[in-house]
């Protein structure tokens, strides 16, 4: 028995398992990296900068950024409390609510758009009431925000829920038994400890909003967001004209990732 085992150990050493996993994973890494680099390298910098200056692209960038900030804010305002409730609740209701929150993540975005149209579309009750009040829920920045919020807010809820769950409940009990109320406990104990995770969720939601296309195009073709602008450039002027705008969007995505990584560094670890 022993010699066999010893041979196996040696074989494992020679065939370093970690290297094998890395080599397999590297195939996927190349698949991510090569097209990105080829896109960026393939676009002359002056062309990209030039397109950034074009009114259509500038306006699309402004729409995307404004709407994404708004959706991330809405997602945070309503998503963080929901995440806290989910993290602290028990039982079947919690399971059901979690499933409901995840639903927009698994729904194809274009279907999400169609689902939303049945509620906020121009012919619906809500759509008509809003229109009477002078607010258009589709073909407006409101429509963009509605679409983005639907698709992106689950990221806040799911990530913040995990962050709250990682805060030991006995810390909250300890705080309260020291005479501090629920609000003080949340503000001074739970929130600071969960904050890096919550911030990661907000950043992810923001990134998802910036890239949102399927639901947005169903609700608001105008005003154009960056992804819609890329699609328009592609269908009207051809692929060649869509590439520089895509590079700009890649830049925004990478910047988001950088911020995410900076925030993800938990000083307590």
């Amino acid at each position, binding site marked *: 028995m022993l010699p066999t085992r010893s041979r196996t150990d040696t074989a494992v050493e020679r065939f370093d398992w970690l290297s094998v996993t890395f080599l397999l994973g590297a195939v996927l890494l190349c698949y991510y990296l090569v097209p990105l680099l080829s896109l960026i390298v393939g676009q002359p910098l002056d062309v990209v900068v030039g397109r950034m200056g074009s009114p259509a692209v500038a306006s699309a960038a402004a729409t995307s950024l404004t709407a994404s900030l708004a959706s991330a804010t809405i997602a945070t305002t309503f998503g963080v409390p929901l995440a806290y409730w989910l993290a602290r609740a028990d039982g079947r209701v919690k399971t059901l609510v979690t499933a409901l929150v995840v639903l927009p993540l698994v729904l194809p975005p274009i279907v999400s758009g169609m689902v939303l149209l049945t509620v906020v579309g121009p012919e619906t009750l809500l759509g008509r009431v809003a229109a009477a009040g002078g607010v258009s829920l589709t073909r407006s920045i409101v429509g963009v925000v509605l679409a983005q919020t639907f698709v992106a807010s689950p990221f806040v809820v799911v990530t913040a829920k995990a962050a709250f769950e990682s805060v030991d409940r006995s810390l909250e009990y300890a705080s309260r*038994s*020291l005479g*501090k109320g629920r609000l003080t406990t949340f503000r001074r104990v739970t929130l600071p400890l969960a904050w890096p995770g919550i911030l990661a969720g907000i950043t992810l939601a923001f990134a998802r909003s910036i890239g949102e296309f399927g639901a947005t195009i169903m609700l608001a073709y105008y005003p154009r967001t960056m992804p819609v602008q890329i699609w328009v450039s592609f269908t009207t002027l051809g692929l060649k004209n869509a590439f520089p705008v895509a590079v700009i969007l890649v830049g925004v995505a990478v910047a988001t990732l950088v911020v995410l990584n900076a925030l993800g560094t938990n000083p307590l670890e």
Partner: protein
Amino acid sequence: MLELSNLTRRYDGFAFGPVDLSVGDEVLSVLGPSGSGKTTFLSLIAGIVDPDAGTISLDGQSLVGRSLEERKTGIVFQHGALFPHMTARENVAYAATDRSRIDELADLLEVRDVLDRRPPTLSGGEKQRVALARTLAADPDALLLDEPLSSLDAPIRRRLRDELHRMFASLDIPVIYVTHDQRTATALGDRIAIIRDGGLEQVGPPEDVLKRPESRFVARFTGNENLFDATVTARDGESVTVRIEDLTLRSSADAPVGSSVTACVHPSRVRLDAEALRDGSGRDGPTREENVLAGTVDRWLNEGDEYRVSVDVDAASTSLSVAVPPHTFERLSVEQSSSVRVAVPADAVHLVP
């Protein structure tokens, strides 16, 4: 004064209570195995869980229905539950009703030199000291401790236990100390409450509970490894005679003749007889004060601070566990299969109905 009356809480597959108990300005050690309801007991008092029935009152005020923050029942958790994003000082300051007390408490618990460090860099003992300082800073009307020493190494545990003993004595509030360690419970408690399956088995001063367990469970849990089914055969004056198979023991406990009882003998109260070992001329059989039994050493175990020797008693198919101090063990040069005599004082034979 903390008073619990008919306190009950049911879970799936576990029921706590009903428990009736009064705790004055004293230290009550709650001792029980894991899963016996010790933490539930504290959680009910602290307000972390609500009772299904019963009342809790502290200094005459009912606590049921009040939130955690209104109860003034300071709780110290097993691992301290210090806020990891605050320094030790900030942790204590968070709770302090009077900021000037921070340094005073830091001195009392000897944590002054670690006040500016964050909890993850503190040792287990330092964490518990800071946690206790934090809890006391809130000026609680009752102090609840959930096994705060259980995760510490033995030497630190012993030292901190000693300090806690002195500190608790200076507090004029009810202190409830939950533990599964009999030594800690005995060392710290003015009274011990033995808890089992959510109910109190016995409450009393450590001396009473250890020497006169009222049930087999309490006897076993407080270290009485020697439990025998026995029958009371005679009674005269201040002692009774019990029979375990062919073995007769004298006990200074009281029980009616003819009754079936459990005879409990704590290993620490049995003595290996040196005379018997040396020349085999030891006395046999019970006297009024002492039972001397012949037997053979079956096996022994070095437990560090004492040896645990298992002696097969000749007159019965049972063995007797004897705690032998190291110096005695070495002096007697105990070996396996050596013939020995053991002496069991009559007042060490406790009878449980």
